[in-house]
């Protein structure tokens, strides 16, 4: 039987197939796909634009098939997907802000990234100079007896990224949370345009600091797809090694921070020590605590020596020795469980609708992990399990992380024991004609998607989609009916990226 993706693409010119097909479609087919998204037969992976075209990445989850469909919009309008399928709302608002292309029928026309501070409107489109004049942002209303608002941010109390949260509460109970993001918008996609590959990788590695490996990995993979470049085997294994170290460090940090937000600082203190161990090992093995700028298009910039191997192995041993006691403590502390169990429940249906990746999706029954679903090398040659739970509460998101730490430890050991000998990098050759590529890499937070078009050795257009785009809105849903005091706990258990989202 022909798959849904085949049906969508039937009779269309496939422009590129690196590695997934992209085709220009009619408005009619665009709306057909919108309906398939609503019906849950397809998932939305990304929605982005160019000055007079919109692109949508869609996935048939059962078959792990992906396609990119593009719609020409010479009059700068296209039929809104968000009108039918809410996950598209924020991407459509962002497209309007950056490119001036309007989604017809979009139910929420408020700007998203553009706070009217840039001195320019539609910076990636026609660039209209305007005077900066921050206008008040109309938050969604909530009315009723005794309902009051709490405004938080953009500067928060902790050492975290900036964003604004507007709570409407009735007594202690959150009636509505509305997020306003965009504060750390740096215009990265604008900086990408015209950059060479080296600078592109540097920028990609600075989209979200905690996912610097995942982003450099995804960007490099997309560029390699565009250039049809083969990466040496050793480099592939080293990339996965760094990706797992990054996952390990972040999950350890998160578990500690979640417990800290429940005022249980002991686990936080111990997890911080384990995390520091991973960072120090990374620094000794790869020359940088966060392993920044090590993954480059074509391969990796530096090798792992015997000394580095030993240090990583010693770090794994320490975690294996010390971590189980912390897990046991977490599981057996009633006061802590009281905070995390049944708190911030994300329903499975919502996780599926938003195609939520990472521990957020997997704690709510969505068994998607790009390492497994797409089995990109070297994960096709490695043994690992993808833990899935269905409770969807803070506790489930903690347990997914616990299980993933165990899986990452096992993965790193496999990689260390089978690290093949080969060159480290295939030098990219400049491509004269245009070439496109897309890649999806499983970061610690979820699937990072990068789409890139190269021309004459430079980046013409690059889109980087953080998993947070489809996770942030779910936090608004998960917090509803919880008490305000549990928000930090819920927020930390989601740990969405501000910088990765704001871009």
């Amino acid at each position, binding site marked *: 039987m022909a798959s849904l993706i085949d049906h969508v693409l039937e009779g269309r010119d496939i422009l590129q197939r690196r590695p997934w097909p992209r085709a220009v479609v009619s408005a009619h087919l665009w709306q057909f796909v919108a309906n398939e998204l609503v019906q849950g037969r397809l998932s939305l992976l990304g929605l982005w634009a160019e000055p007079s075209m919109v692109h949508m990445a869609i996935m048939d989850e059962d078959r792990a098939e992906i396609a990119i469909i593009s719609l020409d919009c010479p009059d700068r309008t296209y039929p809104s997907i968000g009108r039918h399928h809410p996950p598209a709302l924020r991407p459509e608002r962002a497209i309007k802000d950056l490119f001036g292309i309007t989604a017809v029928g979009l139910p929420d026309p408020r700007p998203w990234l553009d706070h009217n501070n840039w001195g320019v409107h539609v910076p990636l489109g026609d660039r209209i100079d305007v005077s900066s004049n921050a206008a008040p942002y109309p938050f969604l209303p909530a009315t009723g007896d005794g309902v009051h608002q709490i405004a938080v941010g953009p*500067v928060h109390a902790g050492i*975290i990224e900036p964003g604004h949260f507007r709570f409407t509460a009735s007594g202690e109970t959150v009636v509505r949370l509305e997020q306003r993001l965009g*504060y*750390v918008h*740096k215009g990265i996609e604008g900086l990408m345009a015209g950059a060479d590959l080296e600078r592109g990788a540097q920028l990609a590695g600075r989209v979200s*600091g905690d996912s610097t490996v995942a982003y450099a990995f995804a960007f490099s993979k997309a560029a390699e797809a565009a250039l049809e470049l083969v990466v040496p085997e050793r480099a592939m294994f080293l990339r996965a090694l760094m990706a797992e170290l990054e996952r390990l460090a972040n999950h350890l940090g998160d578990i500690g921070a979640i417990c800290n937000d429940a005022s249980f600082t*002991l686990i936080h203190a111990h997890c911080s*020590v384990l995390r520091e161990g991973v960072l120090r090992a990374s*620094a000794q093995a790869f020359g940088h605590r966060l392993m*920044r700028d090590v993954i480059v298009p074509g391969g990796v910039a530096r090798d792992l020596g015997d000394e580095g191997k030993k240090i990583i192995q010693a770090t794994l041993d320490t975690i294996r020795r010390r971590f189980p006691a912390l897990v046991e403590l977490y599981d057996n502390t009633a006061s802590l469980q009281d905070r995390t169990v049944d708190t911030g429940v994300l329903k499975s249906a919502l996780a599926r609708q938003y195609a939520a990746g990472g521990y957020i999706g997997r704690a709510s029954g969505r068994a998607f992990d790009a390492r497994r679903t797409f089995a990109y090398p070297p994960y096709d040659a490695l043994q690992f399990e993808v833990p899935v739970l269905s409770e969807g509460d803070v506790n489930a998101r903690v347990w997914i992380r616990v299980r993933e730490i165990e899986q990452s430890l096992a993965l790193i050991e496999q990689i260390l024991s089978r690290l093949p000998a080969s060159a480290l990098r295939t030098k990219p050759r400049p491509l004269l004609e245009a070439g496109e590529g897309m890649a999806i890499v499983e970061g610690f937070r979820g699937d990072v998607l990068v789409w890139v078009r190269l021309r004459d050795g430079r980046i013409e257009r690059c889109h980087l989609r953080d998993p947070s785009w489809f996770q942030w809105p779910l936090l608004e849903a998960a917090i509803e009916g919880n008490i305000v005091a549990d928000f930090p706990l819920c927020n930390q258990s989601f740990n969405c990226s501000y910088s990765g989202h704001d871009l």
Partner: protein
Amino acid sequence: MRKLLFESLFRPALTEHAPSSDDAAVTELATAVGHAARRRLGRSLSIREVDAGSCNGCELEIHALNNAFYDVERFGLRFVASPRHADVLIVTGPVTKNMREALARTYDAVPNPKWVVAIGDCARDGGCFAGSYAVVGGVAEVVPVDLHIPGCPPTPNAMLKGLLALLEQADSAVVAP
């Protein structure tokens, strides 16, 4: 839990484990920071952190300052929740245009005398994001900066060194707010 706490009582403190020269340098530096902070501020220096547009890399390393290896609180360096409780504002990131006002307002909320430490390469001049339509540039474009600590991100060690330098500077001459 009792077992864990018990173990922690008998295990030597992590900060005193000094197997490599690297760790020894931390201890030496930490002692120096402690002395300077005590002289100047009677063992209390409250720090408020503001992310003005960073990628979050610097925040991760600022967090690390609080772990058992660096444990900045033992020198009286403390991260506080409100700018009104702070002596020092630590600012990261290229300042984005969307964060300019929030940064300026946070600075205004810090009582005098106050110092600003800009952390990371982006905080100097916008780093690799300089020139973007959405970026103002370095922190000094918005608030006066007393000290800049370079790095992408700077290591916790480098930050500790930087804070020491700030204390010494504050010691030798009162920095105008």
